[in-house]
């Protein structure tokens, strides 16, 4: 039986899970927003990673057939989207019932009736909209998590309702979302995949026979194949899908890391510091790395590692949010734009406005002041991104500097403006010969390191002592 290893990184903002195989290859990734209930966040991330792993295996199993049937690629991508939609559907139904229950509990009379009518119609409108976004892959990177996806649409609809209903509709939301979000739903992979295939069948059926002129011919052809072939999924594909659905997934060992690690329902010896995990993960992907910078939601770490991936020293900013990911979140809130739009907007900066404030909260005031003075949003954002990196540079200097290869990890590594300024400043400070690594899986580096520790069965069980020498698996 194949052995798999799990790493869960419970961060302050997001919870990540990674599953690797015996060759240290990532086969499953899961991510969700961290919430008050840490164990739910960990469970959701883990389950997502497990589903993702089944899809990875499915794709791998289809390798041979894909050359002959290229449309399989498109089908599997669609299937994965559809699969996510079905999960979403189950959760949004729960949310709807929770909302109804909540409204009944705190409102009465005519107002209750009005609010219920609105909740009904809002969900009636937003659910199909979101379904479309899932099925046609239009969700984009803008919203990742259940809460964000639904709240965006919900708020939009509430805005259209009568102002007198604003307060009760928002109260109903606030009281219900946490409950719905924190419910652990045990999805059955086989069942969901069956439903996902049904949904796809409908989707393909409803596709128009010809597409508007602006769509590429290529796409048209692919769609036509799908329409033709996938009203009934071929037997061979169906059997592959049912194989992975029935696959027995054996997690041989696991490691929990991140700020919430002590709260994970893991045995003590499976808990590991995120500093070690980030370093180990980054080192595994880029073995020549000697310096790792991790910008997380609520702390920033500059880590020096040796040739084994072991940490030799680290410096940490855990006192001030101004150098952390949360700073960007705060600025996004201040500007009423989504976190993922910040970076691209900052990329349009023609200059970097000097941001003097080193405090996250006061940066908000400075932002408004600068806007009043006529500075462009893009230029202010450019300055803010640069300010974060300046902070990180000082931390890197404290930790000993950069000598050869440098790897950047953490959720912030997805932000193109952060990468731009980081690259610029690293080169300015340490020369053009420094190799800078930024992996697409940057945000998963901690969880990956955790999974790799689990595979190696390196126990650092503190404080209880178990001296048995760990054997290589």
């Amino acid at each position, binding site marked *: 039986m194949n052995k798999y290893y799990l790493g869960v990184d419970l961060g302050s903002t997001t919870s990540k899970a990674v599953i690797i195989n015996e060759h240290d290859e990532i086969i499953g990734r899961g991510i969700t927003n961290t919430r008050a209930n840490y164990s739910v966040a960990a469970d959701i991330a883990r389950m997502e990673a497990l589903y993702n792993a089944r899809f990875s295996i499915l794709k791998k199993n289809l390798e041979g057939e894909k050359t002959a049937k290229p449309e399989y690629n498109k089908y599997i991508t669609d299937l994965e989207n559809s699969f996510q939609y079905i999960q979403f559907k189950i959760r949004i139904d729960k949310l709807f019932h929770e909302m109804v229950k909540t409204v009944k509990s705190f409102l009465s009379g005519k107002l209750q009736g009005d609010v219920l009518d609105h909740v009904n119609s809002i969900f009636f409108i937003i659910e199909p909209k979101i379904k479309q976004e899932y099925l046609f892959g239009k969700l984009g990177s803008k919203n990742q998590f259940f809460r964000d996806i639904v709240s965006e649409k919900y708020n939009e609809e509430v805005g259209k309702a009568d102002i007198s209903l604003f307060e009760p509709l928002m109260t109903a939301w606030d009281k219900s979302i946490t409950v719905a979000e924190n419910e652990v739903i045990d999805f059955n992979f086989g069942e969901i995949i069956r439903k996902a295939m049904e949904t796809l069948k409908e989707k393909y059926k409803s596709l128009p026979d010809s597409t508007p002129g602006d769509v590429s011919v290529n796409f048209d052809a692919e769609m036509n194949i799908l329409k033709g072939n996938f009203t009934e999924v071929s037997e061979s594909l169906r059997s592959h899908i049912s194989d992975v659905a029935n696959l027995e997934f054996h997690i041989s060992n696991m490691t929990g890391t991140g*700020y919430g690690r002590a709260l994970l329902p893991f045995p003590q010896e499976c808990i*590991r*510091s*995120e*500093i*070690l995990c980030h370093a180990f993960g980054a080192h595994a992907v880029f073995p020549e790395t000697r310096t790792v910078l991790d910008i997380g939601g609520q702390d920033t770490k500059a880590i020096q590692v040796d040739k*084994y991936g*072991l*940490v*030799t*020293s*680290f*410096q*940490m900013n*855990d*006192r001030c949010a101004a150098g952390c990911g949360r700073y960007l979140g705060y600025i996004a809130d201040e500007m009423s734009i989504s976190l993922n739009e910040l970076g691209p907007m900052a990329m349009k900066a023609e200059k970097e406005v000097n941001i003097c404030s080193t405090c996250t909260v006061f940066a908000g005031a400075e932002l408004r002041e600068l806007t009043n003075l006529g500075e462009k949003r893009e230029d202010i954002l450019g300055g803010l991104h640069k300010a974060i990196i300046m902070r990180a540079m000082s931390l890197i200097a*404290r930790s*000993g500097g950069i000598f050869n290869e440098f790897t950047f990890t953490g959720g912030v590594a997805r932000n193109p403006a952060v990468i731009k300024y980081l690259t610029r400043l690293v080169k300015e400070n340490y020369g053009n010969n420094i190799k800078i690594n930024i992996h697409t899986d940057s945000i998963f580096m901690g969880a990956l390191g955790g999974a790799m520790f689990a595979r190696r069965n*390196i*126990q*650092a069980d*503190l*404080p209880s*002592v178990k001296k048995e*020498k*760990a054997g*290589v698996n």
Partner: protein
Amino acid sequence: MSEAKEVIKEKSMLIQKEMLAKLFRELSTAKESGKKVVYTFVPGNLTELILSFDMLPVYPEINALQSGMRKKSAAYIRDAEKIGFSEDVCTYVKCDIGMMLNGNSGPTGEKLPAPDLLLLSYTGCYTFMKWFENLERLYPGVPVAMLHTPYQEDGKITADQIAYMVKQMKEDVIPKMEKVSGKKFDLPRLSKMMENSAKSEDLLVKILESAKNKPSPIDAYFAGVYYIGPLFTAFRGTQEAVDYYNELYKEVQERIRLGLGPVTPEGELKEERFRLVVEGPPNWTNFREFWKIFYDMGAVIVASSYTKVGGVYDLGFRHNPKEPLESLARYCMGCYTNMNLPQRVQLLEKYVREYKADGFLINSIKSCNSFSAGQLMIMRELEQRCGVPVGFIESDLVDPRYFSYANIKNRLESYFQMLEQRKIILERESQPAQ
């Protein structure tokens, strides 16, 4: 977090406790008994000289740390800030000033007498000078004697520097002491005391060096601050101090014979897992919690720089009865914070090697410039020279606002895991491939 559990007290601890209680009793009745009181600092103190005039020393920074340990410092600091001391001023100073503003009740609750002499022997810390300027204003009319200690910029103590310091003692410090105490300077008495000083110093070195044993019978940082107490403060040169160190040394020898680890407030450390060298003063407001984090991890501090602030005796210096004033001068200049940075690095490197430490850790104090300056350089040098994992944590002396238990614990946990993993992986690497 630790709740008061019965703390094991060895005989030496009880002796020390009694010595301190007696001193504070004497201080509280000094005005009635006619004893004169000298306020002075621990690093580079002239305790034998003070005692030779039958005067009593008061060390403001010891009062401050005691107030910190007794959870009184937050209120004192707040009061000092109320009258205008900035957030960034040394918290020992603010705690001390706050204590005086609140009636100058010492750590034991007994009232501390006002000073009859302010003896500023400032060693490696320029804040001391500002501190005493404030005390001078708080106690107008009290004479101030200033002993300037040259910094060891070139890493050595020269004959000229010694002559310069002896001159200050002869021309300023001693005449002022004679005037305040009404007694003549008694050189033979001072020499006699120095014999006791040297005896205590010999014993302290043996005690601190016992940490070279595996397991170490002592913790040279957390327990170390108690061990240095009598010698670094009011008892150097006394027979009481010699007796205390004899008793303590006996206890340590017994622990070595039995192969026992250090005594901690949580009980005896059963298994020594990590040996560390620590640089920087401890945090006092959460001292026991802080120590417990190390205890829980099985970490023993085998050597520390903090236990050298009142004298670096393990490099061979002893007070010399034959040259009392000259040896006081040498002593002042030789204190840890008066050593230049290369000397400090060298000393710490020696500790890591000779005490076979697994790691080097810095507790950086927010409000202490004399310790914090150069620490990052020290850390990097130690990492390169010794190849041991280095760690860095931040807290403060006596301002509880700067002690974040969760942050410190998180960093220390990561640090100990670093040490643990290094052991495991290096062990594997040294084995032939399977």
